[in-house]
């Protein structure tokens, strides 16, 4: 089980990712140009200080444990929370952490699949943002292997 300290640390990482993407609920805007601009985890950490997203069992991230090729990594992000307005998919170690997000309406489930590029093994996150501007996340590690003949 995770210690409280680790939980806090993880929350801080996600808060950093979110702050860097400009996607913290209070910053949400019509078009999220800044959201896709964060270059590194360090960059996004600079913007820490916003309300920390919480790890939640009501958010699920799905994907392979090992990806044979980082060019295509199939991920699913979903949440069983009742009031989700947005679902995000993040790759911590990518040049820009945010890969994609989906705006949820009453007519679709908060359940999406998308395929992303990963430059290296990394944690991947699903983040659900609720109508009352809280953020919840789940994460898992995806290992990217070197495939083929290496040439």
């Amino acid at each position, binding site marked *: 089980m995770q210690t409280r300290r680790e939980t806090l640390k993880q929350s801080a990482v996600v808060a950093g990712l979110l702050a860097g993407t400009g996607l913290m609920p209070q910053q949400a805007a019509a*078009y*999220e140009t800044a*959201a*896709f601009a964060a270059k590194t985890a360090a960059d996004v950490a600079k913007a820490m200080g916003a309300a920390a997203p919480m790890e939640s069992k009501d958010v699920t991230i799905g994907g392979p444990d090992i990806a044979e090729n980082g*060019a*295509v*990594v*199939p991920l*699913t992000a979903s949440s069983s929370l009742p009031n989700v307005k947005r679902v995000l998919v993040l*790759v911590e170690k*990518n*040049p*820009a952490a*945010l*890969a*994609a*997000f*989906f*705006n*949820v*309406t*009453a*007519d*679709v*489930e908060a*359940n*999406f*699949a*998308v*395929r*992303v*590029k990963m430059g290296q093994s990394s944690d991947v996150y699903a983040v659900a943002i609720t109508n009352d501007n809280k953020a919840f996340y789940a994460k898992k590690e995806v290992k990217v292997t070197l495939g083929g003949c290496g040439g």
Partner: protein
Amino acid sequence: MSDPMRIRAQAAGNKTTVRVLMSHEMESGQRKDSSGKLVPAHFISEVKAEHNGKVVMTAEWGPAVSKNPFMQFVVKGAAKGDKIKVSWKDNKGDSRTDEATVS
């Protein structure tokens, strides 16, 4: 002009699972060509889905979405024969809209 999408929309009970394949380079902007120059980013940035003309989902993507993107989502209450329309727009202003019938 862009190649058409492949949209499959399948109803099961009161839920319709929509699977979409899009034809797009999704150039990351990180890759260098053979002469060592950075290839500019070129990617689908906005996606929209409509059910019988009503917008049910919008999305924004970055260049980390894989080439020839695949996405899946679930529409509540769509029934056989309904129309699902998907549109995308990329960062260079190209766009594409295709429609499928729920089966």
